[in-house]
């Protein structure tokens, strides 16, 4: 089996606000192998970004809290790591690309300085020239000319800025890259450029990536595995072939996501959206979190949380499918725990 890079088990994250406790992540299990791309899919409020921030331990101080669970990155235990260790891990082992390239760059520093900052923090280059040479190299890698490193972020277009953000994230060749909706703010033709560049770089540097997105099209074109998230949990995961097989053996929420998309190849009169709204994370429904919107809802769904069933690496959490999928077996507690 390929080597596991990241292992998250039973992660719970809460945000505490003045008048409520927000249950953002509720028992999340997630694995990422070395070099693979995992697509983390879900709608606003599903807890995708919170998961990524937990891996970096960047949850807002005093408000966000990891209440339970383990996060292992290689040999390291992220939850127990000291702040000093985290400073070393961030940027060097894991780095993150944020959604909005306009706000994630510092407007008063040149882009060259911003790339050099990561190198200064993590790599012990002896001379200024060595740092500058590396900056030039990285900028060329993301398709920018090195002469532009003396310019400021506002002098670049959105797509260019996102390339700079990617350059900063990859400067120290991290093992894991967290990309939070990296192309959502970009136009389609620019999105295509950035995605194909990210794909190439990932292969070249052998970096694993968690690609957070709500765009199933982007997932189909770039990811090896897919995890679908709903109300702070992974409700279905599997290889991209398993999730996009077009069959019926999927979680009703996954089917709903596909049904909501207008299809370019078939003409349909009406879309089949999922009824209702995402549940309020301060007051989550009991049983299966999706039962309030589920067309296949049964009695048991209201009271009992579905356990995970797994068949050939394809994981599902659904009472309705439990008895209907012969090749699947219940995931036992032992096989989940980290060894």
């Amino acid at each position, binding site marked *: 089996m390929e080597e596991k890079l990241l292992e998250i088990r039973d992660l719970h994250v809460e945000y505490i606000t003045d008048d409520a406790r927000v249950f953002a992540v509720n028992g999340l299990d997630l694995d990422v192998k070395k070099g693979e791309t995992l697509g983390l899919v879900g709608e606003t409020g599903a807890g995708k970004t919170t998961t990524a921030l937990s891996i970096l331990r960047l949850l807002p101080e005093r408000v966000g809290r990891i209440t339970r669970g383990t996060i292992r990155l290689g040999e390291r235990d992220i939850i127990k790591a000291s702040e000093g260790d985290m400073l070393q891990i961030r940027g060097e082992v894991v780095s993150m690309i944020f959604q909005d390239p306009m706000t994630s760059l510092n407007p008063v520093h040149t882009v060259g300085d911003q790339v050099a900052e990561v190198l200064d923090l993590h790599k012990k280059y002896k001379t200024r020239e060595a740092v500058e040479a590396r900056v030039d190299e990285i900028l060329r890698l993301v398709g920018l000319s090195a002469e532009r490193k003396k310019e400021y972020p506002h002098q670049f277009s959105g797509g260019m800025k996102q390339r700079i953000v990617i350059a900063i994230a990859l400067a120290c060749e991290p093992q894991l890259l967290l990309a939070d909706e990296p192309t959502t703010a970009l136009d389609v033709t620019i999105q295509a450029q950035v995605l194909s560049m990210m794909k190439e770089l990932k292969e070249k540097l052998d970096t694993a990536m968690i690609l957070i997105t709500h765009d199933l099209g982007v997932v189909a074109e770039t990811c090896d595995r897919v995890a679908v998230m709903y109300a702070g949990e992974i409700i279905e995961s599997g290889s*991209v072939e398993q999730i996009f097989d077009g069959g019926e053996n999927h979680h009703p929420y996954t089917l709903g996501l596909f049904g*909501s998309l207008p299809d370019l190849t078939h003409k349909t009169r009406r*879309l089949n*959206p*999922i009824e209702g709204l995402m549940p309020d994370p301060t007051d989550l429904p009991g049983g299966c979190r999706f039962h309030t919107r589920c067309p296949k809802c049964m009695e048991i769904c209201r009271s009992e949380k579905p356990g995970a069933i797994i068949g050939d690496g394809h994981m599902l959490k659904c009472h309705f499918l439990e008895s209907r999928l012969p090749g699947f077996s219940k995931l036992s507690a032992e096989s989940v725990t980290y060894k």
Partner: protein
Amino acid sequence: MNTPLIQTQDLKKYFRTPGGLLHAVDGVNFAVEKGKTLGVVGESGCGKSTLGRLVIRLLEATEGKVLYNGENILSYSDEKMLEMRKKMQIIFQDPYASLNPRMTVSEIIAEPVKVCRTLTKPDDILEKVYELMETVGLADRFVNTYPHELDGGRRQRIGIARALALDPEFIVCDEPVSALDVSIQAQVLNLLMDLQEERGLTYMFITHNLSVVKHISSGIVVMYLGQCVESALSDELFDDPKHPYTNALLSAIPVPNLSRRNKRREVIRGEVTSPINPKPGCRFAVRCPYAKPECTAEDIPLKEISKGHFVSCVLY
């Protein structure tokens, strides 16, 4: 052929900027028949929102005509325009920014009615508000809430109810679903299509999302830097795109199935050039894989290559 409900003739809008004249919309012609939907697609900065605003005179055009039932509304007086506005409404992109945070849902929906005085008795107005809320699928209990208490999908429904308040014939939908999650997006698209069927509405649907535009439109205009580069019936444009830019746009959309995986896509180079003082000739030429010297020699007119299918490209 019927006279189109709304039609533009060589519509132009230039903005004065310190760097020169910004050609936001540069000579666009289109026509929409009653009850149909015209999709306008293009990337940021191509002038699609400006075009939407010109058509209903939220911006004054620099040149050209907007014909509504054959009459040029750009020559109307303010008074006459106010009458006209009852027939043409707009739904804005951002349901967070387009609703006044200090007004309740009922005040927002009732405002157009109060401004145009189509109803005057408070009871009648309230009744109308309830009726509209039912039409767009908002529960009665939200009538006295403020926009910040509601989620994006519900807010967009308020925007739609407000646009319907005067029983318009024509609605400009400026990216009405791009700020919404996919499952909510599908609900709102279904609502817009149902309303069109019930009320015979005519839409101008502005978006950058090509799969949405194919789903909802009968005809499509593809814009690039203020100009229309191709226009055709929806199915024809998707089955047989002619302009290299349309092709590039179509191949850039990520498709949610695996058929295109591992195939190398044609990714077009470069980025949109500046719309300030553009050079003559095809504006896409610098990024175009088929560019020839004649592309930049002079402006390329829109040519009808088959019935209803217009392209501006030297290849045709």
